[in-house]
């Protein structure tokens, strides 16, 4: 009984695996080809007052991530994390969720999420505050997540750029 129930589940599992594997092969095999695979992953830039910490969940096998810091260094005006797709690959950002959170009386930060040709921006917020934007950002040769300010960034703050829905097999 359990074996007959298990077979359809196995078929579904194998089919899903095959579809994902095929998408990966298409993505790797065709130079600079856009595939409809979302750029699943999260980038966060956090500063609790002890210095900013960039973090990301993108797979290093498919993505290369870098951090840029600009402005006066002890108090940077921009911290930008860029995760770019490996050569010959590009993804899409259909459901990007950008969140900026400031958590102090003088805290001040803005957040921006970009997928190559389109972006979301929460604007600069301050004090104990949070702002969120969601949207379809189209094709993604890269995903950029930025914490920025017109004056130096003032912690504590967190900027999160999340393309949700990692597939589970």
């Amino acid at each position, binding site marked *: 009984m359990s074996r007959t129930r298990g077979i359809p589940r196995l078929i579904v599992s194998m089919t899903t695996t095959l579809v994902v594997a095929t998408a990966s092969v298409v993505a790797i095999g065709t130079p*600079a080809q856009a595939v409809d695979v979302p750029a699943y992953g999260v980038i966060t830039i956090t500063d609790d007052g002890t*210095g*900013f*910490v*960039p*973090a*990301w969940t993108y797979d*290093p*096998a498919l*993505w*290369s*991530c*870098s*951090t*840029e*810091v*600009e*402005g*006066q*260094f*002890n108090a940077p*005006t*921009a911290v*930008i*994390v*860029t995760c*770019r797709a490996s*050569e010959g690959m590009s993804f899409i950002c259909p459901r990007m969720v950008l969140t900026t959170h400031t958590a102090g009386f003088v805290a001040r930060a803005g957040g921006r999420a*970009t997928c*190559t*040709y*389109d*972006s979301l921006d929460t604007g600069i917020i301050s004090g104990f505050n949070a702002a969120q934007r969601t949207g379809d950002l189209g094709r993604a*040769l*890269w995903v*950029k997540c930025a914490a920025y300010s*017109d004056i130096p960034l003032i912690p504590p703050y967190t900027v999160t750029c999340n393309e949700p829905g990692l597939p589970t097999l």
Partner: protein
Amino acid sequence: MRRLTAMVATLLCGVSAAVAVPAARAEPGRATGWVITRTGRGPAVLKGKFTGSANSATATAVLFALSGRGRSRKLANAFTTGRIDWGADGSPRVYGVQSPCVAACTDPVETPAGYTFSSNGHKLDAAVYVATWDVHNVTIDLMSPGWRVRPWTPSMRTVQSEDAGDAGARALHTTVGTFSAAEAPGGRYGSIGWGILPCGTYGSGSGRFTGGPRAWPVDCEYGRSALDYTAGATRWRMSGDATGVGATVNVLVVVDYPVG
């Protein structure tokens, strides 16, 4: 924006005629570096902190990791490649004109920097290179066991807006100008290149960053910087047409791979 550029230029100097061609600076004494390698076998998680102070507004640091050997060397993606730009500061400067130096031509910015670098929790099987330009009082503190630091003299080049045939001015943590193009060669064993359109605070324009395997679009609005790397000789080029205001003066930074 052009009016703003002209106003700043007039205010600070009030001269005429654009000169200068794209040029890369590569004075070895200003480039210092460190390499972080494993003391044991196999990959390991890496986390550490870089601190340093800028000698000038053009100070920059690039942190990257290379895995493999010879022409098969490539950027190790588990490590978060990093670039730090201390940014414009200090003495005002007008470029794209015949008398670019308005006040003191040295531009000290004694600004200590702190940057936490890491392999983002991944095990790393690579050597990490830290290349700095015009930076002093550098300390590198490793928070992960099984790694060590030793000095390294990097071969690197930086191109500033004022050396790239641009017109504009910088003062009080801000550059204002019109950018056209910048280029610099990469080393024969490979190099990492980073191009930045000088319109971070405000501006418009777009361009392309080339020299690596792929041409990267750059745009003042959506993504004004691009990074790439190549295992052979190349010529890095940031081309475009942008007018804007930014906090940095470097438009191109190139670090050669070490021999190996």
